[in-house]
């Protein structure tokens, strides 16, 4: 090859790099490893990473069963090792799969249309707010405090440099958005209200009432959905204008936080302001049905600085996992799956309420609930950890006022005995705290 090119050594090809910047030493990185060593190294790391623990964590990342056909299919090289389907004739498989994904997400969210995916639920929510600003020509947003706190942080990052002021609205005793406060927060410059349902506490919001407030003032309603499985049993936010969803629950591994699968869905009239790729149906010259990426004039490779977003790479393969999951469970299975989640969480909340305070009663919940204890949940959790149980997420980091509260999650994978064990340990710790409190009183007496 060197001869064919007409050079003496490969180094000649690197002569454009000024000599002073050419690296003449080895990189100081680990030496080349054999495949067996690589596998061993990662298996060691897995042992140090929560392998074998029972977990009650949710909070935007959910542990659901992943049917084995998902990995069998997404590992086909034709899906795994192909690029964005810009050459449609050579990528019909990916394109038809995206079209089916868009259809199922639309069906589930109650929206007209959905895109081919966003990075995750947090960036999807931020992009939805920017989309609302473009649609309404207004400049500010009203955000529920019960939106996932890390989604709020991401939104802050995006909004700061887009000069979109954000107003926070608190929650009531039921855990739902405070509608009175919401009413006063919305004004004529509000582009959108952004809420989550089920919200960060697992509570289901009254979408229609919130939509009414938004629409009366000419603002859009964006609903973020972090727990996609809820859509099997909870009425979708049909009154919303944009749904910003995290679809991780649909067959995507927890994977220490990513890659996940954000997706936006909206009304037909807003589609040209939606960021991200879209697959559309068309025909070839013989009238045969086929699919192409379409409405590309919204995108960065055509519009450059005038694009709706800078997004390019999305989460295609993860969206395919979601797609296969939705296909496996389908119309009936998704409903049954969601019911199992509700039943487990209802049972667990009932058991916990015998020994501790379950917060936010009076509004419907899906598969998460907030438990308030006498003792700091961090202390309880470190005791649970000794029993190989990861307890609920302590909330004081995100909500200082919920000092002794933790967010617990149960899914179809949580067994009754796991719940009973965890409840037993929490009850024990509550009793010991109460006893400790009681002892000095006896001394006084």
């Amino acid at each position, binding site marked *: 090859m060197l001869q064919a090119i007409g050079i003496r050594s490969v180094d000649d090809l*690197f002569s454009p790099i000024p000599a002073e910047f050419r690296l003449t030493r080895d990189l100081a990185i680990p030496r080349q490893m054999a495949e067996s060593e690589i596998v061993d190294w990662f298996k060691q*790391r897995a042992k140090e990473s929560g392998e074998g623990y029972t*977990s009650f964590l949710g909070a935007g990342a959910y542990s659901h069963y992943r049917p084995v*056909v998902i990995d069998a299919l997404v590992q086909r090289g034709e899906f795994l090792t*192909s690029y964005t389907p810009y050459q449609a004739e050579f990528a019909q*498989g990916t394109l038809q799969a995206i079209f089916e994904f868009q259809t199922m997400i639309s069906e589930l969210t109650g929206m007209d249309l959905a895109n081919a995916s966003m990075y995750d639920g947090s960036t999807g929510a931020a992009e939805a707010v920017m989309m609302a600003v473009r649609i309404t020509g207004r400049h500010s947003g009203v955000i529920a405090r019960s939106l996932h706190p890390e989604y709020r942080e991401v939104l802050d*990052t995006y909004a*700061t440099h887009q000069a979109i002021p954000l107003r926070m609205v608190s929650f009531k005793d039921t855990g739902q958005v405070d509608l009175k406060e919401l009413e006063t927060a919305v004004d004529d410059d509000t582009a959108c209200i952004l809420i989550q349902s089920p919200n960060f506490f697992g509570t289901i919001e009254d979408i229609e009432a919130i939509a009414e407030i938004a629409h009366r003032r000419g603002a859009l309603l964006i609903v973020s959905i972090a727990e996609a499985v809820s859509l099997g049993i909870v009425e979708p936010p049909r009154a919303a204008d944009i749904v910003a969803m995290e679809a991780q629950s649909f067959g995507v591994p927890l994977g220490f936080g990513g890659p996940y699968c954000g997706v936006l869905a909206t009304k037909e009239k807003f589609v040209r302001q939606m960021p991200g790729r879209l697959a559309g149906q068309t025909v070839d010259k013989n009238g045969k049905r086929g699919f192409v990426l379409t409405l590309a004039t919204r995108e960065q490779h055509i519009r450059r600085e005038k694009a709706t977003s800078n997004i390019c790479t999305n989460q295609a393969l993860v969206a395919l996992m979601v797609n296969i999951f939705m296909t496996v469970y389908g119309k009936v299975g998704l409903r049954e799956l969601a019911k199992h989640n509700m039943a487990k969480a209802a049972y667990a909340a009932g058991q916990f309420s015998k020994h501790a305070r379950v917060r936010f009663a009076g509004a419907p919940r899906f598969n998460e609930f907030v438990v308030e204890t006498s003792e700091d949940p961090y202390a309880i959790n470190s005791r649970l950890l000794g029993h190989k149980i990861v307890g609920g997420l302590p909330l004081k980091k995100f909500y200082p006022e919920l000092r002794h509260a933790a967010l617990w999650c149960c899914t179809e994978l949580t067994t009754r005995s796991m719940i009973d064990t965890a409840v037993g340990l929490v009850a024990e710790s509550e009793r010991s705290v109460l006893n400790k409190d009681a002892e000095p009183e006896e001394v006084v007496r």
Partner: protein
Amino acid sequence: MTTKHMTRKATRHISQNEGLIFEKSSPGKAAWKLPPLDVPDVDTAKLLGKQERKDLGNMPEVSEIEIIRHFTRLSTWNYAIDLGMYPLGSCTMKYNPRVNEFVARVEGLANGHPYQPEKISQGALRIMRTLSDCLLEITGMDAITLQPAAGAHGELTGMLMVRAYHESQGNARKKILIPDSAHGTNPATAATVGYAVENLKSNDRGMVDVAALAAQMNEDVAALMVTNPNTLGVFEQEIHKIAELMHAKGGLLYMDGANMNALVAKTRPGDFGVDVMHLNLHKTFSTPHGGGGPGSGPVAVKKILEPFLPTPVVITKPDGTLGFEYNRPQSVGRVRAFYGNFGMFIRALAYIFANGPDGLRQTTEDAVLNANYIRKGLEGVYDLPYSTPSMHEVVFSDKLQSKKGVKTMDLAKRLIDYGFHPYTTAFPLIVAGALMIEPTESEPKEELDLFIEAMKSIAEEVEEDPQYVLDAPHNTRISRLDETAAARKPVLRWKPEPSAP
């Protein structure tokens, strides 16, 4: 039909027809099973009231074998690296090692919850730390975030940091300079961060015109976003002068690392003056493109930008364990929930382990060698607008073929008939009718020869029968699709045929 030009690489074969999944659905079919409920059943109507969903609309009902066949059939309609060379310029379609997929699925790594206590996350944190250390050594930078989900997201993160840095100096500045050869994401990103975009013309060698830059550079310019090697596959030979020019007026140098596959182990951006850059783990570090994602776009910076990294960052705690640090008052904030596309970190690190220092050097050399072999093989057959030396990719134009009315996209469609995925068409914009070809290091000489042979054969066809090329592809399941109709009246989802009343 011209048969003499049929390719040695591909032959037509039977491919299964397959409708949309919704068209196969019928009530009663199922591919799921739940275990018996071990807690009391709940009355969802009572618990949810008006919030109870009654119907899931047109969601499919199909059996497991139908699902397997459906997606397997669809998959066979795709081209993929696993089938052959995928010479998309700037996309670095290299082999995606299967060990990467295996280790990413190891129990414990695949199932780790992002909020599980740090005490039982040491393995995951160690992966993030080790990958960070490797990437810092490879780039010659000082600090890094792995949080961005893709290249464009990395650009956004980098530019947020540029802005935060200038703000900390008392003036955010107004604009970003971007060469006319840049990726579309660069100007889109600058706009997202609230900067005006000013174009920078390339010189006749396809590089940044340093004199023009000197004239355009002033205290209003926050940064220059440069891709190196640039989208012509040309190394910016005066990159250090560019850096000096930027720094002299208080500006920063941002490097789009999309083309890092040309540089790894041969030179380091940190050494030639770059202040902030992103990497694409799905390009340079072999994580799969998966039909368009997921990617991962770590951002590496010099010391002066470290305080502005997104939260959280991985630190070593006083007790020697690893943990996340959230308290970083000058941080630009978070750019996504949790810590980034962790699954991609595992794959990229496995790739680095499989290569080591020698392997990474060899990889870069082979990538550049392969591109130059193609360049030599096709020079004269296709117009080479810039004679400047090529690194990992080569850009031709359709100047010779367009005399017969055949454009780069037509040539690309004909290449499909020869069993190759097309190169990148019509980009970079500074070359009219560009053919941007990046073979990567993964291709054996036999595959490169087949590609060269195919491209030469197509050039002959253009001379003999241009219409045949214009009508391509001829051998695919479907012929060229009507994209105009798709955009004019978008059909973006399936709907059932309205049933007769």
